[in-house]
Structure formats: C-alpha cells, structure tokens
C-alpha cells in the first residue's frame, strides 16, 4: 500500500469517527431543547423568554436538521458564542489550544527524551547497578499521580526552596520559569512508565539471536545498541507514547487548574463549571480531533520502525 492511499484511507476513517462522535456529542447536549434554553439564558429566565429564544434560533426544527446545521457551522468555523465569556468560541479555543500544546509539547519532550533514554540505558545491561537505580526511580515516579506530585513539587520548589513560581498564569507575558513545574509534573508520571516499558522491550531485544549475530560480526557495544537494538526496541514504547497523547490531554486539565495556567484544559474546566454548553461541545470536538490525528501519526511512525508492518495492513 502506498503512502498516499494509506493516508487517504486513514483520513476517511478519521472523518467517519469524527462524524459519529459529533453526533453523540450533539445528542448528549442538545436533544433536550428545554435544557439548552436554560443553559444559554440562565436559570432566572422566564418560560416565555425561553420559548421565544428557542423559536428564534430554530430549535423547534427536527433533530436531524438541527444536527446538520450545527455540524455545518462547525466545519465552516462558526462555532457560536460562548455564553460565559461572551465572545466567539473560535477566538478563545485556538489561543488556549496553543498554550496547552506548549505545555503538553514540553511534557512530551520530557517523556520521550528521558523516558526512552533512561529505559534504553537501563535495558542495555539488565541487572547492572545503573539498571537498578533507573528502575527504582521510574517506579517512584509512576507511583505518584499528577495531582499528588504537583503538591509535592510545589512544596519543594515553591515553598521550601523558593526557586520557582507557584502559579503559571503568564499574566505578564510568556515566562519559561512558570512553565517548568507544570511541564515536569505533567511529564513525570508517563516518563517513568515509558522508561519501564522501554527497559523491558530493550532487555528482550538484547537477548535475541540477531543481537548475538551483531556481536559475533564484531560490532562494538555502542553500535549494537544504536544500530541493531534501538529501532527494534522502540516499537512497543512508541505505541505507548502515542497512547499517552490523549492521556496528556486529560492530565492537562488537572495541571492547568492546579497552576492556574490559561490553557485548553482550564478552558474546558471553566466551560463545564459554568454550563457553557457551546464551548463544552467545541472542546469535546477538538479533543476527539486531537486523538484521531495522533493515531494517524502513530501508524505512520510505526510503519517506519517496523518494516514487517505494511502501512495499514491491519487498520
């Protein structure tokens, strides 16, 4: 299968997924018209006001028509007004998404660089002192959930050592210092997890016949690890990284709220808290889109790592 047709097929599947999910989202939020009116107009609106508003905005049309209209709006970039922030939704979602991408990107960097790095180091020589130190460290980091490590790390770096700010509002513009703690907390858990997976995979690969072949060809240890072992050992960890991407999205909510970081996660949180129905819908759609796109990406990386998997052979 060529790359083009692979992408075409994956995109088709992605679109189908988006359609299904969008329908479910719409069904969940807007099947009960009276509820929508209460959420948009507030609890203290009169029944007359609500009826008038519903009629005016076409809410008495059949469900399917309303869905298609809503979907059309989404595709063309008309995502409606946020009832809480009183601005067009697109004008807040995208900047916030950017801010979260920065946070999640930073965390991903920590996860990939340290998770893979430590895992490979540990797995190169199973049972060595280095292996044991790294293994203990990764068990510790995976044993602490993000909301707890947020508290611990803040306790140490903010209140005890006073090195870092405790909130990351970025109120006076971008600040790298304010980014350090949230990135660390977000990355730590998955990093340890990834390190353990990578280690196990590396240990397995180092015991295979083809690594023995490489040794008996006269390859030195560095070459054996870098050229022969690593690519084969990365197949499992890469799956894990890709599965972590959607997970990062949920981690983002906890971390952003904890550090008062103005990102996508805290936006979703505010929207849910304030019954901002259109904003919640938009956030849900964006989240699903991120997941779907990350899966396509992971399939592509997979095919490159493992020539035995022809692209999309088992989609």
């Amino acid at each position, binding site marked *: 299968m060529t790359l083009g047709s692979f992408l075409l097929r994956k995109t088709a599947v992605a679109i189908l997924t988006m359609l299904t999910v969008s329908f479910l989202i719409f069904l969940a939020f807007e099947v009960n018209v009276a509820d929508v009116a209460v959420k948009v107009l507030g609890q203290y609106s009169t029944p007359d006001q609500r009826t008038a508003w519903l009629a005016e905005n076409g809410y008495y049309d059949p469900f399917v028509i309303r869905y298609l209209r809503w979907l059309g709006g989404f595709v063309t970039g008309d995502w409606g007004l946020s009832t809480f922030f009183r601005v067009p939704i697109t004008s807040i979602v995208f900047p916030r998404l950017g801010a979260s991408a920065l946070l999640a990107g930073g965390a991903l960097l920590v996860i990939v660089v340290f998770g893979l790095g430590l895992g490979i180091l540990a797995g190169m020589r199973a049972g060595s002192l280095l292996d044991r130190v790294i293994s203990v460290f990764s068990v510790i980091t995976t044993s602490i959930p993000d909301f707890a490590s947020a508290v611990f790390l803040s306790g140490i770096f903010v209140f005890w050592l006073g090195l870092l700010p405790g909130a990351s509002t970025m109120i006076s513009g971008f600040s790298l210092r304010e980014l350090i703690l949230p990135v660390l907390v977000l990355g730590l858990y998955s990093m340890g997890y990834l390190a353990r997976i990578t280690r196990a995979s590396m240990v397995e690969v180092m015991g295979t016949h083809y690594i023995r*072949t490489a*040794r*008996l*060809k006269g390859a030195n240890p560095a070459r054996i690890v870098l050229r022969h072992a690593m690519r084969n050992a990365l197949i499992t960890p890469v799956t894990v990284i890709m599965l972590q991407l959607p997970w990062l999205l949920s981690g983002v909510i906890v971390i952003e709220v904890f550090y008062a970081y103005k990102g996508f996660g805290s936006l979703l949180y505010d929207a849910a808290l304030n019954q901002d129905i259109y904003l919640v819908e938009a956030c849900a759609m964006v989240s699903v889109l991120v997941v779907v796109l990350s899966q396509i990406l992971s399939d592509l990386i997979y095919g490159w790592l493992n020539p035995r998997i022809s692209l999309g052979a088992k989609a």
Partner: protein
Amino acid sequence: MTQPILHVRDLSVALPKGADRPFAVEGVTLEVNPAEILCIVGESGSGKSVLTATLMGAAPRGLRVARGQALMSDEDLLRVSERRWRDIRGKDIGMIFQEPMASLNPALTVAQQIEEVFELHSDLPRAERQRRARALVEEMHLPEPDRILRSYPHQLSGGQCQRVVIAMALAMSPRLLIADEPTTALDVTTQAQVLKLIRELRDHHGHGIIFITHDLGVVADIADRIAVMRQGQIVEIGSAEQVLKSPAHDYTKALIAAVPSLEPHDRPPAPAGASALRVDALNHSYGTKQVLHDIEIDLSPGRVLSIVGESGSGKSTIARNLIRLTDPSSGRVVVAGQEMLALKGGALRKMRRKIQMVFQDPFGSLNPRRKVGPMIARAAMLSGASRAEAIARTKDLLELVGLQRSAYDRRPAAFSGGQRQRIGIARALAMQPDVLIADESVSALDVSVQAQVLDLLADLQSRLSLAVVFITHDLRVAAQISDEIIVLSKGHVVERGPASAVLSAPQHPYTRDLLAAAPGRGVF
C-alpha cells in the same frame, strides 16, 4: 603437513556450583585444519554449543574457562580482551547459527546487514562494499540478488535467510567458520542445498569449518573428521570413515545404532473391515489461498499412516482439521463411523475423545503448574471414568508409557524432553481414543530418545489396536513406524501407498527428491 587453523588444548569450562556436573566442557582437545570440516556430534546437553560459544568468546553468563588453550596463529583465544575479540569476530572467525530467520535483524535490509561486516572490518568505500555484498549474495546461489539485497529478512524463506547469514559470516573470508546446527531448522531439500554450499566453501576457499550437529545423517554427508561429545567430553575423535564405519566407543556405537534406517519394516497388508478414520475430499483455505486439495485418507484400526511433507505442505493443517481445531472448507471426516464435521457442542466434545493428539513441543504442551498424575486423570475423567477409575487408569498408563508410578505426584519440570513426550502420550491415551494423531511428536527429541519414543508408539499402537496418523518431515522416522505413507506437497497428495513401496520405489519426482535429500543416505 599444514599448520592447523585452530588448536584447542585441554579446554575445560566450569559450570556454576549446583549444576548437574562440574564442567560443561571438560578436557577437550581438538584441531581444525584448512579445507576441513570437523563435525562435533552430540545430543542435547553434551556441551557442544558451550564449546563453540567459548571459542567465539561468547560463553553464556555464569560459565568460566577453568583451564586450557585455544590457539589460533599463536594467539590464545581464551585470553584475549573484548576489544580484540571485536577484531577477530567476523574477520578471522565467522559464525553461522541454527535459527537463520531470528539471526537477522528484522529492521535492516539484507544489503545493510552484509555491508555492515565490511564497515566493521575494512576501510572499503561504500560502492565497493555494495559490490562485494552483491558478489557474496551471488556466490550463495541466491536467486535475483538485487531483490534479495533490498529485502528484509521476513520477506525471505528460511533457506534464503541461512544463505544470507552464511554470506555475512564469509564476507571477510575468515579462516575459521563455526556452524552451530545450521540446517536443523530447514527442510530436507533446503538442507541438502545448504550442505552442498558449505562443502563448496571448503573446497574452493579452504576454510576450516567446525560443524555442530545432533544429526548423524548430516554428519555422514559432510564431515571430514568427527568428534563425538558426551557430557562435556570428547569420547571419540577421528576421520569420518573411521568413526562411522568402525566406531571405537560404545556411546558412538549406540548413537549410530539409533539412527533410524530408511529401510521400512515388512508390514502385513491392511486388514479388511471398518476403518477407524476416513477422510473424504478434504479442502482447506486460508482466505483465498487453498492449502489443502481433496485429501483422502482411509485408515484401519491398528495401522500407522505417516503424512510426510516439508514446511508449508499443509500437513499440520490436516491434523488441525482432523481434531477440528480449525474447520475445513469442505470434505468429510469420519471417526469410528461418526461424521465429525457435523457435530457441535456436547456431541462434538464427546466424539473428540475418540481422536487425540500428541504435540511436537514436549515443553510447551504440558501445563508447568499441574502435577502429571491429575493432568492425565482429568483426561480420563473427561472420557467418563469415575475418579477412582481415572486414578487407577492413570497409574497403569504411566507404567505403560515407561514411567514410574511415582511420576504421578511430580510436575512436568521434573522430566526430560523424552519423558514429557511420554506423559503427553499417556494423556492422549487416557481418553481411550480410537485414533491418535502425532504431529512431529519426536522431532524435538535426541536420536536415542527418539528411537525409544518411536518404539513405545509402535508397541502401544499394536497392543491397543490404535489407528495412528503420524505427521513428520523426517523420512527416516516415517520409514520406522509406518504401514502406509502419504507424501504431501503444497497441499496435494503426490504419492500414497504402503511404506515399503513408497520408500523403495517412489513414483513421483517430488518423493524421489525428498529421498535423495535425506542426509546420510549412503551410510545409514
């Protein structure tokens, strides 16, 4: 007299404390001369693989060279540094392994893997490396060299992979080549080709070759000299002619006697009467690929039918269809007068006990956590015996298959491969089946053990009047046990008949090829 390439003197490798013997290899002395193939023969656990791993400086962890020398051009291989080893490996000593497919890196192309040897041991420019890699692939008689070079290992067959591994081992024209069971995982016809290739290497390039194998047939085909190993020691070493024709040591004699002959025994013709197993027009497809074409079998009680074929011929698919692990696309399977394929649920479970299977892998097919006795007794109870009956029957069966009654309370880990295969047989028999299917049931065993298990099967089969379907790739084994033989190629039965007729007067060219490829034909 030429100088030997390798001279091993009084080499002993110590096992860790608490092992079943103090030394894995003990007091081994041998020489390898240029243009000579030295075969090291031994059964599992004889120390032959530890010996060669030590000679490559890659002994498994926990093993320690206790004493001795391995001289190659006055350099003692047992005392060189890891850094020096990296120069020697691949350049002075090349190695070929048992698992060709697993020995190649799945993520690199053949070209990358062969060229790497030049990268490691020479300053050749890229273009020259590529040219030489291609030349090597051609020399290995691989078809379409350019396609092979671009391929990944999973795109090649086992035989092709082995040639690639050999090409890699030969890239720097090492003086010494160590081949550890290089053809064991290959089909006989492929094996014959690889053996021919290795003989060519000896003749044209003058490599000294250490060839390790458990298969005396292969030894007879390829060895110039033979060393027989047992329990870490060389019990006999000498020219091939001398060791095979007039062995001095009793162990060597026993090994040679255990090689199954290609001469079939005389068997009475099939008795008339109802058949135990009938298969009509059996077809099987995986997706659009048809792997079995109109298979017909008619087997009377007390008879043994061997299905012989190479890997991919469909012989295991037949076994799976017979016990309905998979369902055929079409056809009829009749066991003891019952049509099997029509049955479902409880009726099928009831019929299944009539047709039982003994598997290939004596280690994987027994649950390591369960005691042997209860495992067999459970099978007996499934066939309707009461608890007391089942236990009594189990103890009888253990004795019948040549184990002690005390085996009842032990777990599989306490038994050797051959003993486990006996347990597997006892478990199958506990159901009191009419038909026993043995899928490569002796191919994982050493020759001497193989002979015992074959004797056991023959004995049980005549005593219990079992119909046995014996699936094997090994013509020698088939010759020993069969009344009738079916030769299977690419899902088609190409030849069938009484064992003596098929083996002594094969009609189909494929059967003749198989027979011609059987190693050690001239000797055993």
